[in-house]
């Protein structure tokens, strides 16, 4: 009886050991290939990283890391250039995986939008639905990014389709950076939608007020530069003034901080600054 028990124990130990010996090298190798590939991706050595990933998927197709490697394959193919359609397929395959990581899914969705944008701008009209379909995505991170990117396409008719999502960002979003991006994108594709969205917001010190800037060259009646934008973008707009105009303001002792402070204090007053060359900069809010 004791002999039988020892035999069973021995067999179990040998069997488990053999199984461990069979599994561990594979796991270690798949793991090490994956790590090496990621390190190469860190250093943007796309070709070498892609070779490692291909080796991993060829040698260990059933490893869970083979699935995860699809995302990095997409990264490598995007980085290499000229293989955007393959990259698009890799990302799309990755987001279909059951064990795909949420953070990488979000990254993949963004990458798909970027790739589709690039291909569309190069003349591949068939990829536009990749962006359009994401305007209704349940994840707002994806939805917002698709709208932002769509607003940048050179086909104005297609770009205008981003307006409803961008308007929604203006109306509901609290993140200042996202808000400013949405406002500028709307000014580009549909200024009237921006006006409506701002008007629908509860009126506060900064909403539903318009910043107006006119720059008139010496002796000319028509302004050389004219701008009406939400007051919320005032700081950004003043920072983005033409270098010559900014220099004229500095000569007169004005910087952005001082202008903002005077505009806020004056409540509707006109700030009129005359340059030495006869030009006049008028800034007011109402």
């Amino acid at each position, binding site marked *: 009886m004791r002999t039988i028990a020892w035999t069973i124990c021995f067999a179990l130990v040998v069997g488990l050991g053999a199984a461990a010996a069979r599994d561990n090298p594979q796991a270690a190798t798949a793991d090490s290939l994956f790590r090496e590939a*990621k*390190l190469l*991706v*860190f250093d*943007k050595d796309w070709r070498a990283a892609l070779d490692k990933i291909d080796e991993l998927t060829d040698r260990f197709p059933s490893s869970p890391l083979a699935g995860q490697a699809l995302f990095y394959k997409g990264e490598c193919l995007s980085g290499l250039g000229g293989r955007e359609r393959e990259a698009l397929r890799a990302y799309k395959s990755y987001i279909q995986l059951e064990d795909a*990581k949420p*953070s*990488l899914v*979000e*990254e993949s969705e*963004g990458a798909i939008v*970027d790739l589709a944008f690039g291909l569309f701008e190069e003349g591949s009209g068939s990829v536009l639905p990749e962006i359009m379909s994401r305007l209704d995505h349940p994840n707002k*991170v994806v939805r917002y*990014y698709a709208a*932002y*990117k769509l607003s*940048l396409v050179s086909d104005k008719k297609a770009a205008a389709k981003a307006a409803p999502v961008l308007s929604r960002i203006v109306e509901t979003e609290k993140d200042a*950076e996202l808000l*400013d*991006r949405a406002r*500028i994108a709307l*000014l*580009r594709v549909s*200024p*009237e939608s*921006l*006006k409506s969205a701002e008007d629908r917001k509860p009126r506060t010190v900064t909403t539903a007020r*318009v910043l107006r800037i006119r720059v008139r060259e010496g002796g000319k009646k028509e302004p050389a*530069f*004219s*701008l*009406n*934008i*939400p007051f919320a*973008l005032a700081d*950004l*707009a003043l*920072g*983005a*003034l*033409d270098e010559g105009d900014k220099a004229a303001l500095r000569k007169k002792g004005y910087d952005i901080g001082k202008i903002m402070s005077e505009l806020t204090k*004056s409540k*509707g*007053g*006109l700030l*009129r600054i005359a340059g030495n060359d006869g030009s006049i900069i008028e800034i007011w809010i109402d």
Partner: protein
Amino acid sequence: MDKHKDMPPERRAEPDAIERLLRETEAVRSEIREAAASVDWDALSGLIADRAMAADRERRRAGAAPRRAAWLAALRMRPVLAGLAAGLVLGAAVMYFVLRAPGGGAGRDEGYHASGEFLDRAELEMARRNAVDYLEKSQYMLREVFESPDEGPAAPAALRSERARSLLQKKRYLNSQLERFQMAKAKAICDQIEMLFRELAQIDDDLPAAELGRIRDYIEERQLLLKINLVKKELQSGV
């Protein structure tokens, strides 16, 4: 007229209104001229006077004698009537053109507008500010995770992962801008940090010491914190 710009705001309202009215009148003047040119003014006064006379003749038929004095008066007033009628026609034309285009100029003045060139500059300014912000936040994050090797990371793994995801989202928006405005140096350093955040965003548990050590070595070897500082200073000097 320009003197009123120096007046206090409460006294400026009236001169401002007059100036605006003059500007708007200027805008419709050309259309009025076109309309006026299509009218034969020499014939018009005569025509109006003839019709006025015809109406008078009708009334005279009804009772000629008692109205003789009035008829004579109307005859004497003929040029005045013609002028009055012409004035009415001109006034109606002005009203038509003013009402037909309610604020062609004013509409543009009320709504938002900005040139594409200006929006590009605004986006460049935004890219610069957001890149500085991204680099600052990245510095905090990297220091917090990697600068206390003996004590372990200060933030819980879930919070760290969430912050990393938020920075990844910021980076995606930045990508478009950094590429468009050819901010290559900022793009390169932001890309390197992005890879680290991608790793951090995936790790829900506390980082094992070995993993932490590996990432710390990566940051030190590539002198990421120093590079972040240099690029940040460069971007800030553009203020």
